[in-house]
Every structure is written in C-alpha cells, then in structure tokens.
C-alpha cells in the first residue's frame, strides 16, 4: 500500500517523537526532551526507511508503519511510556502520509485490542507480517480536498436519510442547496422522498431523492413501480437490485462503485433487520 496521495513517504522527525511522547505521558516538551535518549529515538524513527541505495527493505507503507511502532515500542528511548508513544507515533506517521488511523472495533469500550497488540509488539512477540496486517486494517485513505471552485460553494442542504415530507416552494421555485428549480407547477407543497441506497451508516454517500412537484403521491408511486419491477424481474428481487447497484452506486467514504461483496453484505444485513 503506497501513501494514499501517491506522494513520496515522509518520515517522522525527532520533534514529532517528542510531541507524541509529551502527549502520551502528559508532560511538557522541555521535560520530554530532557529524558529522551535521542540515539535510540532516532534509530527507531529511521527503522521504516531502512535500505541501501535504491533498495528499500520495507517498500509497503503499512509495513513501514508496523516497523516504526515495533521500533518505538521496543527501543526504550524513554524511561517510561514507550508503548503509548509507539501507538501515537504510528498513527501520526500514517496521518503524515495521508491516512486516518481507525481504532479497532474491539477497542470499545476499554481499548483491549490496541493495548494487547502494542503490549505484545513491545516484547517482539508479534510477527512483523501479522502486525502489518493489523496496521493495514487501521488505515483509511483521506480523500483529496475538493477543488476550490467546489469548496467555496455554500454547503448543500442535507436531509436526514429516509425522510419523507413536504418541500414547500414559493413563486413556483424549489431550492435545494445551490440547486434552484424554476417553473415548478403543481400542488403546493411538493412532496419530497429521500432514501439511502446503502444500509450502513458509514456507507451513506448517495441518497436517492425524488421530488414530487405535481402530486403528493408521485414519489411513492415511483418507488412502488420500482418494487413491482423488481418482483417481476426474472432472476428475482435480489438480482434486480444487484443489477441496479453493483458497479453503479457510489459506496463508502472514498466513493468507489459498490462491489459485489459490499452488496452481499448489505443485503444480508437488511435481511437480518
């Protein structure tokens, strides 16, 4: 896994280590600097960049992060708090290279998984491959910033998922965020129907919005017609929705097209609920 933005990897500096240690130990920077063995800290920070000439010992980014955590936890550059500093240094290294650090679900509520992994790493009882896999599961690529032209636009109105209600309009005009629809004629107020395509909260990226401007029951009729079409689909309802969503619906935080596995997972979740 390369850094999410395709940039060259940037490594932590000694100042980053001091700040991470200060945060981990709840001490001021001056105190942390005075108790840090800079040779050992520098050695730990350089570990992920190990190599010779053009040869990189750890070309994969997740491996570099794992090596860093292992080195900081076990080099003992501080008299106390090396494991806590290792966790923060690992996360900071990933953030510096465009990844968010996502704690494991099993950390809720008492931090068990992360603490046990880092504890084991400090005694080097976790193989590097296993630690790399664990670190890889923590990484989430941060999406690129919006282009300036989009970022400067006023925010769009976000309606709650699965909202059904009225969208009043005046002077035959409907406004949703920056989108202004003129020449709307019909019964006032218009009906609006919003539903999310994905059932997972983390997967909300696209909402299907149907605005009924010519009759209150129109949006529901549209949905009923779609469901009726699904019932008639020769391969069944599930395959109907698969054909509509897989490879077409935008999914997840990075906005990738929904995969078959994600569809299966969502479908199974929907059947359970």
């Amino acid at each position, binding site marked *: 896994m390369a850094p999410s933005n395709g940039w060259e990897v940037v490594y932590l500096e000694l100042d980053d280590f001091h700040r*991470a240690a200060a945060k981990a130990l709840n001490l001021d920077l001056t105190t942390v600097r005075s108790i840090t063995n800079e040779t050992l800290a520098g050695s730990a920070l350089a570990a992920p960049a190990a190599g010779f000439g053009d040869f990189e010992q750890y070309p994969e980014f997740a491996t570099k992060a794992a090596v860093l955590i292992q080195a900081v936890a076990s080099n003992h550059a501080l008299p106390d708090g090396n494991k806590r500093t290792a966790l923060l240094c690992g996360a900071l290294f990933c953030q510096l290279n465009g990844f968010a650090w996502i704690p494991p679900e099993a950390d809720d509520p008492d931090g068990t998984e992360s603490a046990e992994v880092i504890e084991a790493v400090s005694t080097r009882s976790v193989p590097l491959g296993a630690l790399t896999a664990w670190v890889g599961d923590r990484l989430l690529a941060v999406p690129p910033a919006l282009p300036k032209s989009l970022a400067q636009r006023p925010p769009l109105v976000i309606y709650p998922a699965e909202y059904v209600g009225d969208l009043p309009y005046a002077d035959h005009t409907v406004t949703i965020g920056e989108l202004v629809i003129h020449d709307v004629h019909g019964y006032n107020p218009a009906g609006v129907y919003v539903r999310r395509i994905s059932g997972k909260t983390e997967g909300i990226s696209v909402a299907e919005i149907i605005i009924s401007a010519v009759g209150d029951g129109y949006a529901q009729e549209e949905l009923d017609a779609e469901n009726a079409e699904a019932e008639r689909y020769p391969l069944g309802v599930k395959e109907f929705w698969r054909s509509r969503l897989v490879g077409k619906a935008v999914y997840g935080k990075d906005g990738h097209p929904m995969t078959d596995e994600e569809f299966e997972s969502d479908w199974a979740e929907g059947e359970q609920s």
Partner: protein
Amino acid sequence: MTKSAADEEILAQEVSELDEDALIRTLATGRREGRDTSQEVEALLEVTAQENRAALDRLAK
C-alpha cells in the same frame, strides 16, 4: 421535518471526521512544502489520544 438523535449523531460524526481529514491534508501538504506543521501535529495527536484514550490508559497500567 423530524430529525432523530441517531441522525444528529451521524451528522456530528461526519463533520468531526471532515475536520480531521482537513487537518491530515494540511499536515501532509505542509510537511512536504517545508512549512512549520507543529500546530497540526499537536492537534492530530490530541484527536488520536482522545480516540485511543482507553487503549492508552490500559497501556499506562
């Protein structure tokens, strides 16, 4: 329009994640451009420490 507590929580979480994403982008870009990024580092360490508070407390024992 009614907005459930769950919807509000989801929106608040999304906003908070957007802030963190912006910080990460500023840090990553700033460090590569040679700018002073100590404020971003401090802010992200604070966020990370909060998100991993339970694990850090366990490791301190």
